[in-house]
């Protein structure tokens, strides 16, 4: 067992996924199976091998700071779930207490 059901519950919370009990029952053994399979990377002798985060060697790319027009507010807000006073309207972000 590489991951317990409790750990999967915790992962779901970190992932901001309100999983139901049935879904957890289904996902937990699948995640366990996948994690066991991908853990095979640990077999590789890789001491001293530098990590690759990106396929190509990239360095900082500089360019001139040009002023270009940005999207209009009404365009940006046109797909928002809720809008008020030309702003995104969101549910409360602070706790009541």
């Amino acid at each position, binding site marked *: 067992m590489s991951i317990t059901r409790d750990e999967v519950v915790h*992962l779901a919370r970190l992932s901001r996924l309100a999983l139901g009990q049935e*879904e957890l029952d289904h996902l937990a053994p699948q995640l366990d*199976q996948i994690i066991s399979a991908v853990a095979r990377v640990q077999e590789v002798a890789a001491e001293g091998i530098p990590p690759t985060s*990106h396929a*190509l060697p990239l360095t900082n790319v500089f360019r001139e700071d040009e002023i270009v027009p940005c*999207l209009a507010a009404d365009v940006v807000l046109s*797909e*928002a*779930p809720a809008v008020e006073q030309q702003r995104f309207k969101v549910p409360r972000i602070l706790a009541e207490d």
Partner: protein
Amino acid sequence: MSELTTMTAADLSAALRSKDVSATEVTQAHLDRIAEVDGRVHAFLHVAAEEALAAAEQVDSRRAAGAELGPLAGVPVALKDVFTTIDMPTTAGSRILNQWRPPYDATITTRLRRAGAIILGKTNMDEFAMGSSTENSAFGPTRNPWDLSRVPGGSSGGSAASVAAYEAPLAIGTDTGGSIRQPAAVCGITGMKPTYGGNSRYGLIAFASSLDTPGPLARTVLDAALLQEAISGHDPMDATSIDEAAPPVVAAARQADVAGLRIGVVTELSGEGYQPGVLSRFSQAVELLESLGAKVTEVSCPHFRYALPAYYLIAPSECSSNLARFDAMRYGLRVGDDGTRSAEEVMSLTREAGFGAEVKRRIMLGTYALSSGYYEAYYGKAQQVRTLIARDFEAAFGQVDVLVSPTTPTTAFPLGERTDDPMAMYLADLCTIPSNLAGNAAISVPCGLAPEDGLPVGLQVMTPVLADDRAYRVAAAAEAAFTERWGHPLLASAKGLDGASGLDADDTKGAGR
């Protein structure tokens, strides 16, 4: 079926240029074909008939006015629904973006429009490009035109199926772990993953940013090259875009020559888990290349065995970070906002309702791999394996000019077979993943039908970074020799859609032999 829909993009281009046919006629013929067959194939999530005809009319009037137009002007193309389009919905195959209208065009979209290509609509895909069968789409699966009971591969399954079903001569896909090459292989067409950074990701909804690569699907190698040339090249809007001249891929596809070329067969990409018919067609393809003057040797890439596990740590890690932007605040779905719930509760309910099972699995897997205490053992280790895979490629390309393998271990599998068995689904990308991790170019080109099921097999040709032209050269040579041997293109053997009265009713010889 209209003759216009069976023509290659190159032939359509010539007919359009000589005014034998108008862009409007070509576009209408493809829209008619879509109306005829897409109820069965379901390659498209959205068909933009009005916009396509308007764009075609514009090309026709510009041509009539004597304007100098590019090779794709008036040629239809299907666009994977992961690229933003200002005039069409963009969903990435997800409920969380159902009917989303993006406020801007992706660079790929802009370049297609600028080239005068006619965007027919948006194609179906696995949700957020995560999958190998297009069954993870929130809007229902796409079916393989060779056999409607089988998957078209994925995640660019809609794009591959649209081309194989003659709904479009060209399509754009994206390839993060094989999502262009694998569907191309199982649909019997050509698909290319260009060098990472060769095609812009601006406006491509991100899955795994260090791996995602847009690229072409087509019925011929030359057509794929024409499409790649129209979309590739530096884009200042993408920080990882390569600021160098794009490889001359159209010229390479026309060259179609392997004489004297050193070809390496990858030892690790064969054997157990591979379908016998896939291996026999692959061996024949290698013999064919040898008969055309290539020098074939076997090359070992020992760390390729660890590519799949490394990929399924790296890609989910990047995905868990990228998909954090779907937070129900600024666009897309919002669920449960009843005035009492907090933003965090609404976010969790929305993501629960908006994401499918595979996306949830990968977000959680990535969250796990990146969490403190596991980071070094999983994500860190996978990044080291990525280095070792790139070194395997470097060593191999010290000995040979290109590497070859089957594109997929098996032919198209039946719908539903692997949907609840994630590890079995992941194996479909066994041969394609190494080139995503190393960022080099790789193409899939049809190499025959597996004798046991009569379904298409793909030959994969991998080249060094920025040697995309070499992939086209080898694929075009194989395509020409195979087509001569079979007496017709492989796709002419497909009977899934048009039945015995289809394209080539008397096909009893050819690719199945």
